Structures are given as structure tokens and as C-alpha cells.
């Protein structure tokens, strides 16, 4: 099968979701990724949730890769890694500098031994950060980068900032930037025959994603402050109850409002709202009043049907989908976003692919490498 990155070989010595995801993105795009696992298996093999003695996390993060077990503290195995690096195009790591120094895998050591290699290291705060900062975990990263403090929108000051969706949102964002920088550098390698060292800061990825918000504050065009709502937009947009879950409504224009009135059948309570209130009279009080009325109405609606009716009126209302909604969603099915892989342990699994459909090089996932007898050693589920 043709993948966009066929012909490229990457060695992955990453041991956290940030680096593993960067390499997964490239493996799913067709690169040959050889994952180096410590004796006993990669740390993510021992993280839940598990099924039949195997980590679902590991098997998600390592699709389309190959794997080899090396003890990098052992000189013979370390020499084997160097032989692999001599034949590879890139090296992906996510350990801190102390680990790199202990294993002869610093940027300078790699550049000296393998000048053609593109070498990327993803760490919480980037190279040169105080060593004790680099023990940060995902929740520390998303808090250091600002998204947690400002999520969800309109969180009152007495409610805790949130870690984001799942456990590893900041790792995945960092993985995208690491993969992007790697691919750019590999284009340069094709041209010049030379490698580069790439130092990715997970916190900086978080901050970079806020350029249109925090960037204005940095430049003095908007006021930074301690306000938890500093990233908010105002307006009535939020999640509302539906009969079978929730819908998300976003409205900013008169056309949105008139479309919504039509959808609701011109309710009496709405008569006190000027047609152009969203643009010119969007006060806190009016937003609050709207939300009370609208929530009463939306609570009686089915989330998919009412959203489709709204969309046909130009109103940006959508269902708040849950996992079970997605796999059978007609648009996801049409695009083939979930690919069923025949997993040797789990059986058939609907596996998320990538958001880009590429006409010449469609993505075809293969299961992550199994490594008997290294199933998850912490979970309680029985091996198959």
C-alpha cells in the first residue's frame, strides 16, 4: 500500500504519549517507524484501560509501527541502536536531558555521530528548562500553557481549571508539531543531506495555539489579567440540554437569530429581543435570559433532528456527540474515518485514523506490535 511517507525510516525511543503520538502520525502516513522498547515493554504497555491483558492506550498510540526490545543502558544494545540510527532518517525522543546524557543521546552526541539524522526531542518545557520542571505531566503542561485556566468558557472563579479531554490532550498537540517540524526538516535533508536538531516544548505548543487570543494581549491590544473568562467571546454560545443528551448552539448574527426564531416557531418570550441583539445589544442579562428560555425549549428536542433542522435554517447548532454517536455517524462513515482493524488480541476494532483524506496516499492502519509475554503488568484483566 502506498503511504505518503513510504521510504522514510524513523527510530522512536520515546516513552510517553507525546513522542509516541508524533511517531504514530508519521507511521500511519506510511513511514517505517521502529519503536525501541525497554525490556519488559514500553511504559505505555502498562497503562490502562486494558482488555484481555493488553493496554488499549498502547495499541492506539503505536499503530503501523514495528518494535524491537533494547536495553539502552547495556553497551551492546546501545551499540545496536547506533547501527540502526546509521541507516535511519530520523530519531524521535521525548525524554529529559538527564536521561539523554545518561544514554549518550544528547543533541550534540547525535549530531556528531549521525550528522545526516533529523533528531527531535519533545519535552514539557523544552531543552534548557530547569531539570525539575521536566517532570511535569500532561495536566501540569495544559495548566502551564493557559488552556486549563480558561476551560471551559465562563467557568466561575471557585471551580477548578480542567485538564481537557481525556488524559493526553497536550501530548497530542505537541505530537502534531513535532511531526510537522520533523517532516519539514526531512525535506531539507533530501535537499542538503544534512540533519537538524529539533527541540519541541509542549507548553509552547499550547501557547502557540492561542496566537489570536494571547497574542493580542502580549501586544497590548487586549488586557491580560487573572480573569478566568479572558479567552471567552461573550454571546450566548454554549452547551444546552436536549432530550437525549446535549446540543451546542453558536450565534453571532441577526441571520442566526432569525433562523433560530423560525426553528422555534416564533415563541412569545423572544419578542422582547431586538432582531440585531447579537450584534449590538448582547448584554450579559440578555444572554442569561435567552439561555433560560432556550434551555427549556431545547430540553424537549432530539439532538440530531433539531440540529439538522437548525442547520437548514443557517443556524450553527450541532449535537454534542458522544463516542457511541461517532462510529455510526453518516459523515464519519462516508469519509471512512474509523477503520476496522483486525487486532490479534482485541479482535475487530474501530480505530480512528486521521482528519486528512489524501487522494493519492490514503491511510491504512495496521495493528500495533504485540510483544508477548509483555502484556500489561498492572491491570487485573486476564490475558486472552
Amino acid at each position, binding site marked *: 500500500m502506498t503511504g505518503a511517507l513510504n521510504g522514510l525510516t524513523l527510530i522512536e525511543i520515546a516513552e510517553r504519549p507525546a513522542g509516541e503520538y508524533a511517531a504514530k502520525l508519521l507511521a500511519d502516513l506510511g513511514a517505517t517507524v521502529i519503536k525501541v522498547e525497554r525490556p519488559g515493554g514500553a511504559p505505555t504497555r502498562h497503562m490502562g484501560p486494558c482488555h484481555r491483558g493488553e493496554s488499549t492506550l498502547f495499541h492506539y498510540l503505536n499503530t503501523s509501527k514495528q518494535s524491537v526490545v533494547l536495553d539502552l543502558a547495556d553497551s551492546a544494545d546501545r551499540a545496536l541502536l547506533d547501527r540502526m540510527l546509521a541507516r535511519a532518517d530520523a530519531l524521535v525522543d521525548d525524554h529529559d536531558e538527564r536521561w539523554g546524557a545518561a544514554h549518550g543521546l544528547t543533541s550534540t552526541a547525535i549530531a556528531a555521530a549521525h550528522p545526516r539524522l533529523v533528531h527531535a526531542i519533545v519535552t514539557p518545557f523544552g531543552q534548557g528548562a530547569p531539570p525539575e520542571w521536566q517532570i511535569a505531566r500532561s495536566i501540569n503542561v495544559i495548566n502551564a500553557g493557559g488552556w486549563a485556566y480558561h476551560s471551559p468558557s465562563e467557568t466561575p472563579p471557585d471551580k477548578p481549571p480542567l485538564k481537557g479531554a481525556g488524559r493526553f490532550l497536550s501530548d497530542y498537540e505537541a505530537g502534531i508539531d513535532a511531526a*510537522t517540524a520533523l517532516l519539514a526538516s526531512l525535506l531539507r535533508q533530501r535537499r542538503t543531506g544534512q540533519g537538524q536538531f529539533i527541540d519541541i516544548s509542549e507548553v509552547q505548543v499550547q501557547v502557540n495555539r492561542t496566537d489570536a487570543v494571547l497574542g493580542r494581549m502580549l501586544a497590548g491590544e487586549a488586557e491580560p489579567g487573572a480573569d478566568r473568562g479572558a479567552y471567552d467571546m461573550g454571546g450566548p454560545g454554549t452547551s444546552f440540554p436536549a432530550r437525549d443528551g446535549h446540543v451546542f448552539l453558536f450565534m453571532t448574527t441577526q441571520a442566526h437569530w432569525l433562523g433560530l426564531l423560525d426553528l422555534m416557531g416564533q415563541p412569545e418570550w423572544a419578542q422582547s429581543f431586538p432582531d440585531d441583539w447579537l450584534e449590538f445589544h448582547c448584554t450579559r442579562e440578555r444572554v442569561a435570559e435567552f439561555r433560560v428560555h432556550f434551555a427549556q425549549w431545547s430540553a424537549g428536542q432530539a439532538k440530531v433532528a433539531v440540529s439538522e433542522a437548525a442547520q437548514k435554517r443557517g443556524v450553527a447548532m450541532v449535537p454534542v456527540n458522544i463516542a457511541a454517536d461517532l462510529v455510526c455517524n453518516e459523515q464519519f462513515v462516508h469519509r471512512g474515518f474509523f477503520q476496522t482493524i483486525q487486532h490479534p488480541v482485541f479482535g475487530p476494532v474501530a480505530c480512528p485514523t486521521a482528519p486528512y483524506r489524501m487522494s493519492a496516499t490514503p491511510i491504512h492502519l495496521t495493528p500495533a506490535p504485540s510483544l508477548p509475554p509483555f502484556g500489561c503488568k498492572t491491570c487485573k484483566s486476564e490475558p486472552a
Partner: protein
Amino acid sequence: MPLPDRGGPLAGIRILALTKVWAGPYAGKLLAHLGAEVIKVESATNLDEMRAYGGVDRDSAPYFQSINQEILSVQLNMKTAEGLTLLRRMVGQSDVVIDNIRPGAMERSHLGYEELRRIKPDIIQLSIKMWGNDGPLGYQSGYAPSFAALSGLTALVGHEGEVPRGMNIRYGDSSVGACAALAILAALHHRETTGEGQYIDLSAVETMTSLVGDSLFAWSVTGAVPEADGNHHPDMAPHGTYPCANGEWISIAVAIDPEWQALCQTLGAGTLAANPRFATLPDRLSNRHALDAALSAATASQDASHLADRLRHAGVPAFRSQSSLDLCSDDHLWGREGYRMVSDHRNGSRPIIGPSWRMTPDPAKVERGAPLLGEHNDYVYRELLGLSEAELADLAARRVVD
């Protein structure tokens, strides 16, 4: 006049950007920050909304300037046949075309992929739409919080037991742009290997879905539907954000018992350390609500930065939850060029958020702020397309270049 050499890994790659608002321009920014020449096609009569938000002067609009550093701007009226002819000539000189304009707009302007390929056989085109370029729901449109809600991501973010309100309403566009940049680079590699271009159809909804991929994979295997779970982590306790003095918060993540002991010792919380309900990780997970309450009581009077510093030195992962004010004054980010200065037409210089990467050797220079509307008309029309000064003046007079 030729442009200055900025270096960087994408030097020599030219990208034509028919992009607006945030997701599309963000993709262009990342590629420009890697050294690509990114030409944004604009028009005074069909302006990028970001040139209008928050200011009256389209040449110093805060939103626009926060995103579009090292982007080139060429004016072109796509509503004229002559403008479209010129655009096709620009396509002929480009490696990649990015668009995130309305569904169907490219096709109506005869800029669908097959048409672009007739102009340049190995062209790469990437289109960004909420739901992708076709399909039964392709007609629907929305904004960042809409595609986050559709994707399954919003349902996973909320305080426990409350309506899942999702990430901040701004979250999403930039992540979509980042995935677009990644896909374009993959396609450039395929072109290098085979000589073949391709069409990339990017879905904003699926970008958000891919960011919760492990939760969905686990659901597919185990059948357990993931839900909004506050700050809960199945393998760590305490794991969350805890109140500190002056309305600040601290994030703490404890995985193993020695970290728990170090946390208690640093806080001087001997009663916590001795409490058998919190002695081991399984105990702490089983009693996590009581644990969070007890820990919150212990952190409430502390200074968040100072406590985080002491905890980190004791081996406990901790960091202040940073507000916009904390971020703007973050010395570490300034020291790493996470923030840096670029040129600014009005004020001489402007601080911007720099790339998340540092590269050695040969990083791309990121020195020029966002362009004036049409700042690079001369470069594009005269250097690239070879028009004379008089021809360009005539196009401007007839509003083909507007």
C-alpha cells in the same frame, strides 16, 4: 525586488493561501515559520475578517497581526475573470494551494483540484471544511465550538456531574491548521518520492476527534463510554487543580507513593500522610473526592508559584495554572523565544508568539510582522508573473488588483 533569504527547512517551497479567519491562516503561519514562502491572496472587497475584527485599520488589525507573521500579501479580485486568470498563473508557480473558503467556492471559480492539476500537474491542494469537502453532512457549517461538539471532544470536558461545556470556546481552529500543515508536508514528501501531487480534504470535526482518539479506541475495545470526568485520572491521585491564595490554582499529579509522601511533607500535612484512607494509590483513587477536599484545604492559603516550586524540587509534578497575565510575563517563554519581536508597520516592532520548536542549525528567520494588504503586489506580479509596472498599474486602476 527579490525577497530576503530567510533560510529554514522549507526554503524554496511556495504556498498559495486562499485562507480566512484562523484555521487556514494558522496552517500558513506554521509553514512560513518553517521557511516556506506563503502568499496570501486577498482583496479589499472580500477581506479576511481578521483584518476587520477589533480595529478600524485593516493594516494593523490585532487579530490578523497576531497570526500572519512572515506571510506575503497579494491583492487579487477573484470575482473578475482576469483576476482568476492571474490566480491560475500564480498556481502555476506554486507547490501547494491551501483554501478554507466556503464549500463550493473553489469549484465555482474553476479552482477544483482537477482544474489546478491541468495548470500544474504535481500541485498539492489542501481544503479545510468543517465536515470535509463532501458527504451527507458536508453542507453544514459552524465555528470552532461547533466542530469540537460534533467531534466527541466537548462531551469529554466538564466538571464532574455537570453539563459538558467543552474546552474554551476558542479551542479548535489552530489545531485544525496544525493538522493541515502536517498533511501538506506529508504530501510534499510523496511528491519528492514519486513526482505526484494530490488533493487533501481536511475535516475540522475529525481533527478534534483525532485528539480524543485513545478514548474512542478504548471504547471500541471495551464498550465503556468515556464521559466528562473533571480532572480525574484512573492511574493517579491526587490529580487535579487545587485552590491557592489570591484566587490562584496549582496543578498536581501524583502517580506513586513516594510522590504522595513528598507532597504531604512539603505541605507539612502530617495528618494527610498518616490517614489510612490515603495510604496507597488504590486507597487514594477510591477516596479521591475526600482526598481532593483535604488537599484543597491544605493548599488554599499557599502561594501557587512558591508551592509549585517547592513541590517540583521535592519530586512532585506541579505547576501553577497560568492566567493570561501569568503567561504574558513568563520569563521562561521570553528566554526561549517562545515570545519574540517582529517588525510592525505602525509601531516599529511587535511581540508575537513564536514557534513551538527550536531548530539547529538553519532555523527559519521569523522577523517580519503581518503584511499590509497588497504589500507584495510588486513581488508577485512583477517578479513571479513578469508583468510590467504599467500592466500592474492598469490592473489596479481597473480593480482587478484591489
